[in-house]
């Protein structure tokens, strides 16, 4: 067993009394004061997460943008310089190796943030295809990421003198003390928010300054427990649970993040075939109407027969109800009644289209 990796903020999490756990090989805070309270703080005010475990890959050089665009599923030409885009890297079979955010600085400068546990696999895909003039730098440990999320997130950033006026999915690099901080209007919570990508050496100082303002705004540090309940309420898929190399963007409802008209990207032929034939199952929202909390890998029944399985499931602190994501046959429609087998008890639920609660990202 290899030792868990730690972010530059590890000692601060310990001092704040966080419960820590292994997340993708990293020892990360799961909660500080409690998941439900942290979740509510982000829906109502503001919270900050250390998400420095996420990967960071910089791809530079002549033709960097087109090189990246020939691999990732979404079309980087749909966005302009200074904007970010949700995308995926797929296998040639159309399975999802990872979902990630592509930051377009310019035609020769692309930054990518993959999931922690897939970062090495994503880097390997790019390295295997890279032509000589393009350089791939794995900056996993050189930079940290702090997510500032919630309706009061702009107040917190303004107090630090950081820019907040840019559009959703846009980014601005700004000076902060002796450092350069990338301020991105991105997140994984469904609230208005920012992700700050900063040099590892600056991260402790930046966290401390943010904590002062977050506390003043009635907010809290938040752990990956709240991050999971927040993203599940939005129906955002989590790689390794809801999407994987054995699921396609078509079945996952992520066709909007595929550049179908691009001449080439990894998995293109397979995905076009799946799209033309239609998927046999779709990732749907399942909202419990009875009593019980679905968890991942629980059978979903209709009319006495199992029709699928949950991939994510949790208690929604906003709805105070159980919610889940599940792959269901395409003949099961939104509004249909299903039952989730919660450890032997069939709990009534309704098929819905996420988000389970309204999005406020813009």
């Amino acid at each position, binding site marked *: 067993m290899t030792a868990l990796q730690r972010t530059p903020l590890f000692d601060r999490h310990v001092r704040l009394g966080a419960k820590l756990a292994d997340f993708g090989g990293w020892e990360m805070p799961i909660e500080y004061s409690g998941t439900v309270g942290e979740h509510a703080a982000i829906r109502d005010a503001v919270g900050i997460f250390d998400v420095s475990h996420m990967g960071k890959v910089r791809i530079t050089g002549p033709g960097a943008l087109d090189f990246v665009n020939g691999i990732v599923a979404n079309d980087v030409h749909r966005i302009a310089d200074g904007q970010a885009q949700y995308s995926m890297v797929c296998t040639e079979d159309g399975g999802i190796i990872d979902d990630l955010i592509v930051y377009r600085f310019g035609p020769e400068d692309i930054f990518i943030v993959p999931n922690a546990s897939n970062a090495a696999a994503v880097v390997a895909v790019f390295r295997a295809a890279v032509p000589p003039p393009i350089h791939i730098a794995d900056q996993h440990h050189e930079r940290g990421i702090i997510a500032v999320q919630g309706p009061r997130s702009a107040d917190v950033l303004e107090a630090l003198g950081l820019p907040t006026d840019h559009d959703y999915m846009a980014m601005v690099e700004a000076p902060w003390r002796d450092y350069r901080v990338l301020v991105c209007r991105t997140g994984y919570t469904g609230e208005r928010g920012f992700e700050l990508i900063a040099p590892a050496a600056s991260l402790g100082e930046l966290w401390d300054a943010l904590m002062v303002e977050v506390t003043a705004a009635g907010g809290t540090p938040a752990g990956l427990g709240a991050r999971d309940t927040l993203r599940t309420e939005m129906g955002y898929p989590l790689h390794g649970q809801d999407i994987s190399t054995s699921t396609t963007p078509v079945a996952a409802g992520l066709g909007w993040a595929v550049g179908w008209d691009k001449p080439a990207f990894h998995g293109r032929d397979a995905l076009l075939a799946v799209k033309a034939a239609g998927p046999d199952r779709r990732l749907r929202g399942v909202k419990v109407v009875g*009593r019980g909390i679905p968890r991942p890998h629980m059978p979903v029944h209709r009319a006495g027969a199992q029709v699928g399985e949950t991939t994510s499931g949790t208690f929604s602190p906003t709805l105070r109800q159980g919610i889940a994501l599940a792959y269901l046959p395409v003949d099961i429609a939104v509004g249909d009644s299903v039952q989730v087998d919660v450890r032997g008890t069939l709990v009534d639920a309704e098929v819905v289209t996420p988000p389970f609660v309204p999005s406020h990202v813009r």
Partner: protein
Amino acid sequence: MTPGELRYTSSHEWIRDETDGTVTFGITEYAQHALGDIVFVALPSVGSTLSAGDSCGEIESTKSVSEIYAPVSGEIVAVNGELETRPERVNAEPYGGGWFARMHMSDAGQWGQLLSAADYEALTASA
């Protein structure tokens, strides 16, 4: 933090003698803290007959599910139905408003076999 008048089990239930042949039970402060935010409680049915150690319900936090075990043998005579809508009371008042159920003991001698507060504190201190 561990009330001296109560008795305990190694599975982190507390038990109060109501001095009428019944006992009330719930989970301890230690247990609620370890579980984190409690979001769902499934209670036993009134009238069900249980043996000590039987699983008789579930308690679910944001991240995990735990079983509730009958601390003594006997019959469930009352349950705290408020927990169905306010499970967070188990976090806020584990020894008060967060109680689970009351049982009529099949044999009053069982009380003496439960852990004292000192025994329970020793158990959790070494955990």
